[in-house]
C-alpha cells in the first residue's frame, strides 16, 4: 500500500520490457510491501523527530536546493525526475534525504525492470545499501553547502549537533561519511552488497563464487585500502584522484566481469545501476572533494563510520516500525563489542540504536580508535560473509521466504554478517533479535493414532521442506531436555501441552466421535504452537536437540516422560524438594523490578485462570445453545409439518431451516471460542508457570550465592580462630579454603547476575511475544465472530425474512 504511493511518485520508466528475476514468486510477493513499509516508516519517524529540533532549519535551507539539483541531475535519467524533484522541494531536509532514498530504490528497481522488481528482495537489499550512497551524496553536498555558507567550523558544529542527537542518529553516520569517506562507501559497501545479495539469492554455486571473488578480493581490497590511506592523508588532491579511481575504474571493473558471469538479475542491476548511481554522482563529488578536505579533522573521525553505518542505517530505518523494549535492554548491557560486534548488534538491535542515545556515542569513539584497521576488517567481514553465503545460501533463502514481515530483506543481511562470527554469547543474542524477525513455519499435520501414541507429521521450511514423524512423548521429551539444559540459566522454556488421560483414553478406545476428533485437533494445534514457540526462541533454536527433533528421521524413544517410570519418579522427588526449598528461601530482593514483575505475573496468572474458566463456561454454554437450537429446529420442523395453513407451515419450516444453520454457527463459534481463546489462555497459563520457574531459578542462584558467602564467612572465622590459637599447620589449609570459597562466591555472584539478566531479558521477550500473540488471536477470534454474525444476518435475511414476506404476501 505504501509502496504504491512511492511508486506513484516515480513511475517506472521501463515498465515491461525486460525479464527480471529468477526469484520464486513468493519471495517477491512477500517483499512487495515490505520495502515500502520499511522506508516510509523510517521516513515518518524521522520527520517527526526532525520537527522537534530547532537546528533543522539550517539544513532545510541549505539542503532544499542542492539535493534536488543532485537528483535531478542523476536520477532523472532512470525515471522519475520531475516528481523526485518536487518531493525534495516540498519536504524538510532529513525527510528529503530519505525521500531520495525511496527514489533511488525505485530507480534500482526500475533498472532491474518492471514495477514489481522494486519490491523484490534483491532490489530491496541492493536498494537499502544504495540508500547510503545517495544519502551520502546529498548530505555531502549539503554539508559542503553548509560549509560554504556558514564557514568551516561554525558549519561543522550545527550539522554535527543536528545529526548527533539520538533520534536522528541514523543520519549522523551518513553525514559524517560524507565529509571524507565517499570513496569507500561507494565502492566497498554498495558494491559488495549488491554483489553479495544477488549471490545469496540466486544461490547457485558458480555464480556466487564468481561474484564473491571479484567483489570481496579485488574490489574491496582495492577500494578499502586506498580509502584508509585517505584518512591518513589530509590532502584533498589525493582524495580526488582516489575518488575518481574508485568511482570509475574498480567499480566498473568489478561490475563488468560479474555482469559477464552472472548475466541474470545481477546483470540487470549492475548494468544500469552503477552507471546511474555510481557514475552519475561522481562529477558532483569530484567537485565537492576539495571542499570536503577543508574538514580533514572531522573527516578522520567520521571516516570511521563506513560500512557499519551504511549498513546499519537502512536497517535502523527498516526496523523502526517494530520498536521493542527487548532490544533496548539488551543493547544497554552489551558493551563488549569490537567493531564487528557493534555492527552486528546495531543491525539486529536496531531499536536500541534509535532509542538509546549512548549507542551513537559509543560507535564513534570505537570507530575512531580502530580507524586504520577498520577498513580491512570491513573487507574481511564481507569476504567472509560472501563465502558464508555461498555455503549458507539455502538457509538464507529460507529466511527470506519465511520472513512474512516487513523486515524481509533485513534478516538475510543480518545472517550474512553475523554468520562468520564465532557463536559467542553475543552472537546468540543477535540471533535472538533476528529470531524475532523471521518466522520458521512449522506445522503439524496429519495426526494419527497408532497404539497409544500420536504420530504427528511436521513439515517445516528449511532449505527444503521436510517432514518428520513424532510421538507425543517425543514432544515431552524435547521439553525435558530443553528444561534440563536451559532452565538453570534462567530461560523461559515453553511448556508443551499437558497429557490428558481422559482425552487419550477416548482416542485409545477408538471411539470415532466428535469429542475425540476435537481432542486430536486440539492437541495437534497445541503441539504446533509449542514447537513454534520453541523455534521462535532464539537460543532454544540453537539447541542441537531442537534441530535433531525437527530433522532427524527416527527419534530414540523418550523414556523419561512416562509418568510412572523410574526417571519420572526421581523427577517427582526433585520437584518436591524444589518446592520445599522454594518455600524456605527468604530472599530479600535487591531489585524492585523483579519483585514487581513477580507480583504482576502472579496476579496475571490468577486472572488468566479465572478468564480461562469463564471462557470454558462460555464454550459450554455455547455448545448447549447449539444443542438446544438443534432441538428447537427439529421441533419447529415438526410443528411446521402439522400446521394446516400452508403459508404458515412453510414459514415454520423456513424457521426450522434457519435454526439449523444457527445451530451449526453456534457450534462453530463454540469451537472458535475454544480454539482461539481458551487454548490461548491455557497456553499462557502454562507459560506463566515457566516464567515463574525462571524467577525461581534466579532465586535459587541467589540462594547459592548467599550460602557460599555464609560459608566464606565461616571459613574466615575459623581462620581467625586458628590464628588466635596459633596453629600454623592448619592455617594454611584454612587460607586455601578461603581462597577457594572466595572464588566460588565471585563465581556464584556472577552466575546470579547472569541469570538475573537472562530472566529479565526473557521476561521482556515473553511479554512482547505475548502481546503479539494475544493481539493476533483476538483479531482472529473477532473475525470468527464477525463471520458468524454475517452468516446469521445472511440466513435470517434469506430464509425467514425474504421468504416469509414472499409466502405471506
Amino acid at each position: 500500500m505504501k509502496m504504491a504511493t512511492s511508486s506513484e511518485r516515480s513511475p517506472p520508466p521501463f515498465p515491461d520490457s525486460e525479464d527480471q528475476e529468477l526469484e520464486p514468486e513468493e519471495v517477491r510477493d512477500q517483499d512487495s510491501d515490505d520495502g515500502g513499509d520499511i522506508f516510509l516508516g523510517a521516513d515518518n519517524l524521522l520527520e517527526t523527530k526532525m520537527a522537534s529540533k530547532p537546528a533543522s532549519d539550517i539544513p532545510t535551507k541549505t539542503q532544499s536546493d542542492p539535493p534536488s539539483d543532485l537528483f535531478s541531475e542523476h536520477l532523472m535519467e532512470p525515471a522519475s525526475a520531475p516528481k523526485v524533484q518536487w518531493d525534495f522541494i516540498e519536504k524538510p531536509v532529513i525527510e528529503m534525504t530519505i525521500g531520495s532514498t525511496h527514489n533511488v530504490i525505485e530507480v534500482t528497481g526500475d533498472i532491474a525492470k518492471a514495477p514489481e522488481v522494486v519490491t523484490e528482495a534483491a532490489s530491496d537489499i541492493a536498494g537499502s545499501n544504495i540508500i547510503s550512497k545517495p544519502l551520502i551524496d546529498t548530505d555531502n553536498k549539503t554539508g559542503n553547502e553548509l560549509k560554504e555558507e556558514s564557514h568551516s567550523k561554525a558549519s561543522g558544529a550545527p550539522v554535527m549537533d543536528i545529526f548527533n542527537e539520538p533520534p536522528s542518529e541514523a543520519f549522523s553516520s551518513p553525514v559524517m561519511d560524507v565529509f571524507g569517506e565517499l570513496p569507500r562507501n561507494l565502492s566497498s559497501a554498495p558494491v559488495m552488497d549488491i554483489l553479495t545479495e544477488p549471490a545469496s539469492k540466486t544461490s547457485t554455486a558458480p555464480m556466487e563464487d564468481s561474484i564473491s571473488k571479484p567483489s570481496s578480493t579485488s574490489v574491496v581490497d582495492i577500494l578499502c585500502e586506498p580509502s584508509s590511506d585517505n584518512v591518513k592523508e589530509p590532502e584533498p588532491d589525493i582524495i580526488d584522484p582516489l575518488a575518481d579511481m574508485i568511482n570509475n575504474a574498480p567499480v566498473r571493473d568489478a561490475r563488468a566481469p560479474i555482469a559477464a558471469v552472472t548475466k541474470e538479475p545481477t546483470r540487470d542491476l549492475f548494468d544500469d545501476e552503477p552507471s546511474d548511481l555510481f557514475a552519475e554522482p561522481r562529477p558532483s563529488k569530484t567537485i565537492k572533494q576539495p571542499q570536503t578536505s577543508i574538514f580533514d579533522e572531522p573527516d578522520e573521525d567520521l571516516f570511521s563510520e563506513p560500512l557499519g553505518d551504511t549498513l546499519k542505517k537502512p536497517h535502523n530505518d527498516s526496523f523502526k516500525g517494530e520498536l521493542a523494549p527487548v532490544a533496548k535492554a539488551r543493547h544497554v548491557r552489551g558493551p563488549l563489542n569490537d567493531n564487528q560486534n557493534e555492527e552486528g548488534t546495531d543491525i539486529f538491535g536496531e531499536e536500541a540504536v534509535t532509542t538509546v542515545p549512548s549507542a551513537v556515542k559509543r560507535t564513534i569513539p570505537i570507530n575512531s580508535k580502530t580507524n586504520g584497521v577498520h577498513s580491512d576488517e570491513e573487507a574481511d567481514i564481507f569476504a567472509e560473509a560472501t563465502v558464508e553465503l555461498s555455503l549458507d545460501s539455502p538457509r538464507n533463502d529460507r529466511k527470506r521466504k519465511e520472513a512474512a514481515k516487513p523486515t524481509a530483506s533485513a534478516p538475510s543481511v543480518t545472517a550474512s554478517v553475523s554468520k562468520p562470527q564465532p557463536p559467542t554469547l553475543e552472537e546468540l543474542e543477535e540471533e535472538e533479535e533476528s529470531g524475532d524477525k523471521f518466522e520458521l513455519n512449522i506445522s503439524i499435520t496429519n495426526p494419527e493414532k497408532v497404539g497409544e501414541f500420536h504420530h504427528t507429521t511436521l513439515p517445516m521450511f528449511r532449505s527444503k521442506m521436510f517432514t518428520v514423524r513424532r510421538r507425543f512423548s517425543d514432544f515431552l521429551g524435547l521439553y525435558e531436555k530443553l528444561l534440563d539444559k536451559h532452565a538453570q540459566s534462567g530461560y523461559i522454556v515453553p511448556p508443551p501441552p499437558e497429557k490428558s488421560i481422559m482425552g487419550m483414553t477416548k482416542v485409545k478406545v477408538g471411539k470415532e466421535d466428535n469429542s475425540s476428533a476435537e481432542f486430536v485437533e486440539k492437541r495437534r494445534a497445541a503441539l504446533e504452537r509449542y514447537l513454534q514457540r520453541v523455534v521462535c526462541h532464539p537460543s532454544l533454536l540453537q539447541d542441537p536437540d531442537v534441530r535433531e527433533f525437527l530433522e532427524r528421521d527416527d527419534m530414540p524413544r523418550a523414556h523419561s516422560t512416562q509418568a510412572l517410570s523410574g526417571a519420572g519418579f526421581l523427577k517427582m522427588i526433585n520437584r518436591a524438594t524444589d518446592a520445599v526449598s522454594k518455600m524456605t528461601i527468604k530472599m530479600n530482593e535487591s531489585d524492585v523490578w523483579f519483585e514487581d514483575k513477580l507480583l504482576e505475573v502472579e496476579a496475571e496468572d490468577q486472572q488468566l485462570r479465572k478468564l480461562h474458566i469463564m471462557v470454558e463456561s462460555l464454550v459450554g454454554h455455547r455448545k448447549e445453545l447449539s444443542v438446544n437450537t438443534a432441538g428447537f429446529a427439529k421441533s419447529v420442523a415438526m410443528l411446521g409439518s402439522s400446521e394446516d395453513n400452508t403459508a404458515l407451515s412453510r414459514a415454520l419450516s423456513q424457521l426450522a431451516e434457519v435454526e439449523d444453520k444457527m445451530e451449526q454457527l453456534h457450534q462453530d463459534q463454540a469451537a472458535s471460542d475454544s480454539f482461539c481463546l481458551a487454548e490461548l489462555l491455557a497456553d499462557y497459563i502454562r507459560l506463566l508457570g515457566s516464567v515463574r520457574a525462571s524467577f525461581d531459578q534466579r532465586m535459587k542462584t541467589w540462594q547459592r550465592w548467599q550460602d557460599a558467602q555464609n560459608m566464606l564467612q565461616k571459613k574466615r572465622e575459623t581462620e581467625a580462630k586458628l590464628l588466635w590459637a596459633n596453629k600454623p599447620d592448619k592455617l594454611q589449609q584454612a587460607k586455601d579454603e578461603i581462597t577457594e570459597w572466595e572464588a566460588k562466591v565471585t563465581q556464584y555472584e556472577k552466575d546470579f547476575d547472569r541469570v538475573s539478566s537472562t530472566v529479565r531479558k526473557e521476561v521482556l521477550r515473553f511479554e512482547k511475544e505475548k502481546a503479539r500473540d494475544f493481539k493476533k488471536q483476538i483479531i482472529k477470534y473477532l473475525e470468527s465472530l464477525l463471520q458468524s454474525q454475517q452468516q446469521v444476518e445472511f440466513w435470517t435475511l434469506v430464509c425467514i425474512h425474504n421468504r416469509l414476506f414472499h409466502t405471506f404476501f
Partner: protein
Amino acid sequence: MTSTLDDSEKEKARSVSVDLNNDASLLIDIPDALCERDKVKFTVHTKTTLSCFQKLDFSVPRQHEDFIWLHDTLVETEDYAGLIIPPAPPKPDFESPREKMHKLGEGEATMTKEEYSKMKQELEAEYLAVFKKTVQVHEVFLQRLSSHPILSKDRNFQIFLEYDQDLSVRRKNAKETFGSFFKNMVKSADEVIISGIKEVDDFFEQEKTFLLDYSSKIKDSTAKAEKMTRSHKNVADDYIHISATLSSLSVDDNTALKKHLEKFADLFEKLRKVEGRVASDEELKLTELLRYYMRDIQAAKDLLYRRARALADYENSNKALDKARLKSKDMAQAEEHQQQCLQKFDKLSESGKRELTSFKGRRVVAFRKNLIEMAELEIKHAKNNMALLQGCIELLKSN
C-alpha cells in the same frame, strides 16, 4: 415495585399473541401494576362508549385471582360452551429471578464489584421483563374478551371492569381445589371415553386430529424454545464475566497488550448487551408466542371436548329415546331431552366452527407478525454486532 408500561412496550405486548380487532367502544388496558410480595395488583383501565357502563372512563384495582375467577365463571357458563374461552393468564412467577438473585448474592465473593453490579443489573432487568410480561398476558386476556362479540357482553366481565371496590373473590379452599382437580381427572377420562364416538362432521374430525397433534408439537416447541432462549441468556451472561475479567486483566497489564485487552473487554461488554437483546427478543417474539398459543390451543381443545360431550349426550339421549319407545314409557320426556341435546349439539357445532375458523386466522396472523418482527430484530442485532466487531478489528489492526 411499581412499574409503568410505556406505550411502545405495550405495542409490543399486544403483538405477542393476538391480533385484536379492537373497536373503540370498549378499550381496556393495564397502565399500572404493583407488585407486593406474591401479590400483583393490576390497575385495569377501561374506556368505553357503551351504555351499559355508568362512566366513560374508569380504573379499578384487580388481582391475579380476580382474573382467574373471571375465567372460571366464563368457562362454567353454559351459554359459552360453544366459544373458545380465552386462556387464563398464568400465575405471576417471580421465583426464578428471585432464586437467581439469591444465588448471585452467594457468589458475590468470587466476583469483582463491577461484575457483580452488572450481573445484578442483568437480573433486575430480567425481573422487570418477567413483570412486564405478566402484566401483558393479563391485559391480553381482558382485551380478547373485550374484542369478542359475545363475551364482551358478559355481565361478570362488566362487573370485573366496573366494580370499583375489591372484588375480594373467595380463594378456592382445599376442597374446591381438590374438586377442580377431580373434575379435570373426570374430564380427561371422559375425553378418552367419548373419543370412541363416531364423528359426524368431517370438519370437526379434522380439527380434532389437527389440534391434538398440534398441541403436543407446540408444547414440545415451547419447551425447546424456552431452553434455547435460556442458554442464549447464559451465553450473554458469560460475556459479562469475560468482559469483567478482561478488564481487570488489562488493569494489571502494562505492556502493549493493555490497550488491546481494554478494547477487547469493552467489546465484550457491548456484545453482551446485543446478545442479551437477541435473547430477550427471542423470548418475547418466539417463546412467548408459542407459549400463548399452547394455552390457546388448549382452550380450543376444551371447546372440542364440550362439543364432543354434547354429541355423546345426544347419542345417549337417542338411545334413551329408543329405549323409551321400546318400553313406551316416558316417550315425550325422552324425546324432549333428545331434542334439547340435538339443539345444544347443533348450536355448539355451529359456533364451534366459527370460533375455530377465526382461531386459525388469528393464529396465522400472529405467527406471521411475530416471526417477521423477530427476523427483523435478529437482522438488526446481527448488523449491530457486525458493526461492533468490525470497528474493533479495525482498531486493533491499526495499532
